[in-house]
């Protein structure tokens, strides 16, 4: 699907963008608090505070910090292009002002603010440094992640959470809402009822083989099946009975829920995980179920899956992508710069011509030429160097963070937590009241059958070599017989 035709939802926004939105909103909230505090102090106690400029300060903070931060912060994480542009511009201004402040006052600058009976010492220099660093981070993040923060032109963005959730539900591992369902199969239960059911439900039964409920995971014995249906002993929903009466391969006490799509063996809900289905018109379901062995890529006859590839290659490609982003930004800058040069040329040329006509023209001409050289060479060079330095500083940090993430992923793999059975996912979602996260399918894109296992490996090469060897042998034999024949 082309990117511009893709429908984005509010849940597609990257975590970093959400963080920026919250950061800006928190700046706005702190600014609002400062404005109110300043006004209160001026009105109640000390109207001459800040050399009589207290009201001006309050107004400046409100107009310059509170309003833009709250408005931009509210919209910037909604995947809106204009808000992202506004954020970048605002961050550049904020960075410039805080940088200027630091240059003038230094990092050791502080204010002593009266608060009731005590005095607060505020390290304003440090605050300015923090604002400066935060704005640098925001600019870098938005520029480097432009593609993620701003959807392509014409792409539809669903910002309504309810609608977005519904759209996502089409892809989640279970069609059930993250709450327990009542006995009619449709009504969502209250928290109290859910808790009562989860507290009393049992996952084993002494009455022989049982069926695990897909709603509450309670185990109801098979003896209660009537007309191939079963009413859950705990939540009361009516469950259909799966196609065959075969016990789970790993748990003889449970009836198998269905078969593993890869190996075809029967498993209960504790032994299956849900995966995105293959893209094939022959596959009818919206999900497929895979057992642990196949999920971990250990089923030999038709190996299709593996969950043991941690994204180290992505780590390097991400680091590489940062450099290409820098070069893309630089190219964009050069393009814009070239466009602006058309107008910029006019001034130095006019200057040059006017200077050339006057007296002492050789010095003036040299000056004008130097100015032109600065405009043509120095500015793009400085911009390129700044971008490169930025990239060199930020990439090691990203690389290091990436390695930490890779280590965490590896620990998860070792502790086998990446296999999530459908029953544990269900109960987790009910307890946390969160729809389970959609995970990328771990099904390998490249597959092989058992025949390819042997044949395709080296047979073609060996066959070719064998034919060549036999040809060589027959040629040699012919040569020998010819030489031998000449002797007679």
């Amino acid at each position: 699907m082309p990117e511009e035709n893709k429908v984005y939802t509010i849940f597609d926004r990257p975590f970093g963008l959400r963080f920026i939105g919250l950061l800006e909103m928190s700046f706005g909230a702190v600014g609002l608090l400062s404005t109110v505090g300043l006004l209160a102090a001026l009105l109640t106690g000390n109207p001459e505070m800040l050399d009589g400029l207290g009201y001006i300060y309050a107004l400046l903070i409100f107009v310059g910090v509170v309003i833009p931060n709250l408005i931009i912060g509210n919209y910037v994480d909604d995947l809106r292009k204009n808000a992202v542009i506004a954020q970048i511009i605002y961050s550049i201004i904020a960075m410039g002002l805080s940088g200027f402040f630091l240059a003038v006052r230094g990092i050791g600058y502080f204010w002593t603010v009266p608060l009731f009976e005590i005095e607060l010492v505020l390290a304003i220099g440090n605050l300015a440094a923090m604002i400066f660093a935060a704005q640098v981070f925001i600019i870098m993040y938005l520029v480097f992640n432009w593609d993620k923060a701003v959807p392509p032109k014409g792409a539809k963005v669903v910002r309504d959470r309810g609608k977005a959730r519904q759209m996502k539900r089409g892809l989640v591992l279970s069609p059930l809402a993250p709450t327990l369902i009542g006995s009619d199969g449709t009504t969502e239960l209250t928290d109290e009822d859910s808790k009562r059911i989860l507290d009393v439900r049992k996952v084993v039964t002494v009455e022989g083989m049982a069926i695990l409920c897909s709603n509450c995971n309670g185990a109801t014995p098979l003896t209660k099946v009537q007309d191939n249906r079963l009413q859950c002993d705990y939540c009361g929903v009516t469950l259909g009975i799966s196609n065959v009466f075969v016990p789970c391969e790993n748990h003889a006490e449970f009836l198998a829920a269905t078969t593993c799509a890869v190996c075809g063996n029967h498993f209960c809900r504790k032994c299956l995980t849900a995966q995105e289905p293959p893209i094939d018109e022959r596959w009818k379901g919206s999900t497929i179920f895979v057992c642990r062995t196949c999920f971990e890529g250990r089923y030999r006859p038709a190996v299709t899956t593996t969950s043991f590839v941690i994204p180290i290659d992505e780590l390097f490609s991400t680091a590489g992508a940062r450099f290409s982003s820098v070069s893309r930004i630089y190219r964009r800058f050069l393009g814009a710069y070239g466009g602006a040069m058309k107008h910029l040329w006019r001034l130095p040329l006019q200057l040059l011509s006017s200077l050339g006509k006057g007296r002492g023209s050789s010095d003036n001409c040299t000056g004008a030429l130097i100015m032109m050289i600065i405009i043509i060479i120095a500015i793009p060079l400085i911009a390129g160097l700044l971008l490169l330095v930025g990239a060199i500083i930020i990439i090691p940090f990203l690389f290091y963070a990436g390695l930490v993430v890779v280590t965490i992923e590896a620990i998860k793999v070792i502790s086998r937590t990446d296999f999530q059975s459908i029953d544990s996912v269900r109960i987790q979602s009910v307890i946390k009241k969160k729809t389970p996260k959609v995970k990328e399918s771990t099904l390998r894109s490249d597959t092989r059958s058992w025949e390819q296992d042997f044949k395709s490996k080296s047979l073609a090469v060996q066959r070719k070599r064998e034919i060549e060897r036999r040809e060589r042998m027959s040629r040699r034999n012919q040569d020998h017989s010819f030489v031998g024949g000449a002797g007679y």
Partner: protein
Amino acid sequence: MSSLQRMIMCPVCGGSVIIEHSDQVNLCTYCASPILGPNQNRNCTNHPDTLATEVCHVCKDLICDDCTEKRVGDYGGKLLTIVNCSKESCIAASDWARPLNVEYQRLANMDWADKSDNFILRITGVGAVVMMIFELYFIIGMLNLQYFTPFGSLLPTGGLFPGILVIILMVIGNILAAVLLQTSLQVYVHERQLTSGAFLIVALILEAAYLIWRGLYFNLVQVPDPLFLTILLAAFLFGTMLVFIGSLGAIYIGNKKRIQMNRAMDQLNLSTKSALKEL
């Protein structure tokens, strides 16, 4: 509300099941799992006295083991198992998928290695994670030494800006540890176990040699804080030992699997030798 009027839930995913056929299998509207009809007999369609074990993917009849044909179908590049009954029409409809070689499945079964593979994965994995954490700690520690202690002035710069050489050498160490980590997880996959084990040994030797060289190059014996070097050495030795034991195990078990597969190939006349004989 009577149970008949209630929504019937899929026992697999919880989706709704619409009962269209009372004596045939119905499909879940969400995951398409087959669900028995209310009046459906649970026995095999062809053998009324035998409990069914599968459902035909084509006609949806219940079938027993004797009537089952398993095939491997390629669904958009992913190989999945499908089942059909012995009816001609069902065989014809499943013809696009290849029959599963049951004999091969038996000969190539490697369930015997599950326990040892679990052990090997954990040993090599934990060892590699320790090595990775050790490398991550090492780079931070070296940067701390370089920029925040007087020892930094004694560290070699290689003619570069102070600290650049430290970063370059440490990042190479980190990459080596990342490769070690990635490889250590591959020992769990049957077909990669032997090569991963061998590769791990080589990578481990490289990592150890590189580490010793870095320690000597930066003259870490002279570091004022003795705890730094002690922690590094302890973590390194512990990680190395685990990875080494795991690698040996992977090579041993992987080789046994290789022999098993070679035997299976010979028995099924699928080996390169037998193919060349046919030539």
